[in-house]
Each structure stands twice: as structure tokens, then as C-alpha cells.
């Protein structure tokens, strides 16, 4: 059953999934709690002008394009946080507008430059083909994420559940939001490099939503999200090995989805609530 461990690519994939889930679980949980779940989708599109500019400057260099995507994604994320602080609209509306602008700008740049190359494909990798550089990126991202989250957990919780109260206690709550958005983009870029776009966003958000249906406190939610994420990753990977012609990426996201459905049906805070009221 476990003979797949003989393959280097399987071992790397397992390690990558566990380490990545460790960082993505807390980020994903707060992304869901702060009602920014679609931010992941937005980020992948927001990265395009960065990639376009990097391509113009340095050609088809994966490193420069990843960096370009990172900078563009971070700019959109930070700008939407700042705008949310300064104007009436909240983060989700600002981000949606900004990422659409970034997307349009990126496509414009690419068309003007006259290239038909599908540059986005260079931002996205595959779980079965992890390079050493990608593993390092994942390790570094998760380490930074865990350290920073440990530091900002309390203010982040307060700023999410009661933003006005948090603001009354400290003038610097916008900084917490900004730092959090940086973590989101870092984890998404690492996720894109390792897993490709669909999987990265799925692995970040779906385990978090599933966890919410079981627990009513933050720390247990973070832990459960990690278990769901890493577990789904491993099971999805294993299924892609045991069954014929099952692609790994979608397989993992489908297992995440199955966990979500089970949580929705049987979790304490899921549809159960309706049954008990009736």
C-alpha cells in the first residue's frame, strides 16, 4: 500500500503538502473569517502585470517572473488594505476592483509587447514536479508565516471580530491587516509554484471552511484546518497513485471538498443546526 514511498517525487510531494498546509491553515482560516475567500483567485490574476513586466525586463526567467508576480500581488493586497482603511469600501470591494485593473493592465502590457506566450503557466507548477528551489520557498514561507502569526494572533483576532473596538485600543490595527495580507500573498505564491492555481487556493480555503463547522474557537479551528489540509493532501495524492489516470491536483482538491461536505452534513455547526431547531 505504501510502496509509493519508494519514489522521490512522492516523498517530496508528501513533505511539501504537510509543510505548506502548516502555513496555509492559519492564513486560510483568517481569510475565510475576514470574508476574503475570493482573494486567492484575485491574487493569481493580480500577479499578471508583475509577470509581464518581469518578462519584459528579464525574459523567461522563472525566478524573475515569480518575483514580479509576488510584487504585483503584494501591491494589490496592500493597496486594498490601505484603501479599506482610508475610504468607505472594505477590503473585498477594493481588492476586486484592483485585481481587475491589474489583470486588464497586465493583459494590455502583454498584447502591446506582442507575445503569445502563456506567461501565467510559468508561475504555476505541479505537485509531482517539485524542484529544490520550490521546496526551499515552501519551507521559508511556512516558517515566516508561523512566526508572524504567533506574533499577531491576538490583535488579528480582535481586529477581525470587532474592528471598531480594536481600533479604539490601538491606532496601528491597519498594520496588522497589511501584515496579514502579505502572508496571504506569500502563501499563495508558494502554493502556485508548488501546486498550481486551482490547488493552492483550494488547499488554503476549503479545509478552513470545513473546520469551522466543527469548532467554535480560533485555536482549535487552526489546528483542525491543518489536519484537514494535510490529510486531504496526503489522501488525494495517495488516491492519484492507487487509481489509474487520476490527476493529482484535482484529486487533492476533491478530497478537500469531500471533507467539506462531510463537515457540512455532520459538523456541530453545519446543517445539523437546522435539524436540531426543527
Amino acid at each position, binding site marked *: 500500500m505504501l510502496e509509493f514511498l519508494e519514489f522521490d517525487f512522492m516523498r517530496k510531494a508528501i513533505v511539501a503538502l504537510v509543510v505548506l498546509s502548516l502555513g496555509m491553515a492559519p492564513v486560510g482560516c483568517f481569510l475565510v473569517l475576514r470574508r476574503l475567500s475570493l482573494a486567492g483567485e484575485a491574487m493569481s490574476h493580480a500577479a499578471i502585470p508583475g509577470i509581464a513586466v518581469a518578462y519584459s525586463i528579464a525574459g523567461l526567467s522563472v525566478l524573475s517572473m515569480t518575483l514580479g508576480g509576488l510584487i504585483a500581488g503584494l501591491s494589490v493586497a496592500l493597496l486594498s488594505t490601505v484603501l479599506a482603511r482610508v475610504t468607505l469600501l472594505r477590503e473585498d470591494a477594493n481588492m476586486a476592483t484592483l485585481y481587475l485593473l491589474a489583470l486588464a493592465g497586465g493583459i494590455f502590457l502583454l498584447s502591446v509587447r506582442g507575445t*503569445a*506566450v*502563456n506567461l501565467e*503557466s510559468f508561475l504555476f507548477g505541479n505537485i509531482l514536479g517539485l*524542484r529544490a528551489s520550490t521546496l526551499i520557498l515552501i519551507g521559508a514561507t511556512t516558517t515566516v508565516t508561523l512566526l508572524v502569526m504567533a506574533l499577531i494572533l491576538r490583535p488579528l483576532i480582535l481586529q477581525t471580530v470587532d474592528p471598531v473596538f480594536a481600533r479604539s485600543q490601538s491606532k496601528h490595527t491597519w498594520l496588522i491587516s497589511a501584515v496579514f495580507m502579505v502572508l496571504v500573498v506569500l502563501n499563495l505564491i508558494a502554493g502556485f509554484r508548488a501546486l498550481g492555481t486551482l490547488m493552492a487556493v483550494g488547499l488554503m480555503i476549503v479545509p478552513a471552511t470545513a473546520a469551522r463547522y466543527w469548532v467554535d474557537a480560533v485555536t482549535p479551528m487552526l489546528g483542525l484546518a491543518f489536519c484537514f489540509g494535510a490529510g486531504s493532501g496526503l489522501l488525494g495524492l495517495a488516491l492519484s*497513485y492507487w487509481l*489509474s489516470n487520476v490527476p493529482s491536483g484535482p484529486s487533492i482538491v476533491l478530497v478537500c471538498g469531500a471533507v467539506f461536505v462531510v463537515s457540512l452534513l455532520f459538523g456541530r455547526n453545519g446543517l445539523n443546526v437546522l435539524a436540531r431547531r426543527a
Partner: protein
Amino acid sequence: MRPLLLPLLALLLTTGSLSAADPIKATASFSILADIVERVGGDRVVVSSIVGPDSDAHTYSPTVGDARSVAKADIVFINGLGFEGWIGDLIAASGNDAPVITVTRDIEPLLIDGEADPHAWNDLTNGVAYAAAIKEGLSALDPDNAAVYAANQHAFAKEIDELLARVQPRFAALPQNQRSVVTAHDAFGYFEAQFGLRFLAPVGMNTDAEPSARGLAQLIRQIKAEDIGGLFVENITNPDLVAQIAEETGLDIGGRLYSDALSAQGGPATSYLAMMHHNIATLLSTLSRP
């Protein structure tokens, strides 16, 4: 004589203007095809390509510029066999009723699991068939220059025959256990048939498909168990998977093959023949090593 001079002059002028007529605007769906159209059409055609060099036609999304190019075309050439999934809508959207020539129409396609393999151009004799279809299309549109097209196509076919004559013996001379190679996706079925090689890949005929862990594991086991002559990356796909296979099996990457698109300017595969030449040379140099 005098009264004939004026009409003669008029005739000369009109025929002169006919032969100095604007070249035909041809649009080809991808770079390799565009190059063959240029070979057959010569000075008489101006060719534009929708999917450019180093680009993947399987996953391409056409732009408004592409629709414009198709709309202005006098004739459109496509590969067919499911290679360009987006072309039907593009042509319909452009509202152009210019002739659309499917260059593989007279070719018997290879079938993999019931599905046609679109990469027919990787067999050089099919390259000749492509040129023939192009010649017919251009001649139907511009019969006055049919002879030019026929001559160009003939010259092209001759170059291909010469190339085949040179390389066939070298492939035939390869030992049996040096005939298997691994590439990024199943693009070389026709090449395989023509030269008696065996191509393996972790991804199927369409680059859009995602590899499965099982498929990759089976491929790696197969590579370790059998004699694989070489590992090759391709110009249009992400090299990560092949790199992983290289790491896991200990094989070196023998070079880069051009499968679905020409290379950009300055690269080794800026025309169909250059591309085939480069692929053949790369394969032979790796496989001929002891």
C-alpha cells in the same frame, strides 16, 4: 501597327498591374504551419501566425487581434485533428468567409485510445502532404500563379526527401536498446512511426492534461527497468516534470526538442525544416552515445 499600339499598351499596363497585385494575406493557426505556407507561397503570400513561437496551441486563448487577423485574411490554414480547439469559434466570430484549408485532410491520423493524434507534422512525409494541401488551396485562390506554388512545393518536398535520405540510415543503425526516449508530452507519435523510435511521456497528447501520480510512477519504473536512451524537455512545456524524472532515474537531460511551435528568432528552430533538423540532430547525438 499604329492603331494597335494603344490597346497593346493598355493590355500591357493591365497585365502589369495584375502581376504586381497585392500579395495574398494568409493566416495560419500556428508557427510551424505558417512557415510551410511561406515556403509554398513565397513572395506571393504574406503569412501571419496566430499562435507564435514557443507558444502552446493546446491551451491558447485567442485575442481580438487574432480575430482581426483572421477577418482580414484571404485564406486561412489550420492543422485540424483537434489541435486548435478554439479555431472554430474564432473563424465564426471573425465573420470572414475566406477559404479555410485543413492541411491534414488527406492524412490518415494516428489513433491513440481512439483519439486522433494531431501532431502529424512530426512525420516529414506528412510535411510534404501539408505543403501539397497548401499548394492546392493557394492555387484555387490564385490560379494565375499555380505554377509558382507547384514549383515551391516541389522544392520543399525535395529538401525533405534529401533530409530523410541522410538521416534514415543513421536511425536504422541505432542499436535496439537505444531507441526509447522520454519527452514532456505525447507529441512525437508520428516521429516515432517514421524513425522506429519509442517515445514515452508523463502527460498525454494535450498539454492541458494533468499528470497522475500513478502514471508518473509507472513511467519512472519503466525507465528504470528498461534502457532509455535519453530525456528531453520541450520548448512549450514547463520542464519541472522532466527534471523530476531526471533526478529520480539518474538520467541526464539530453537537450530540448521543439514539438508544437518554432523557436523565437535566434533559436535553433526558426523554420519547419530547421526544427526537424534540430530535433533529429539532438536525438541522434544522445542516442548514438554508447
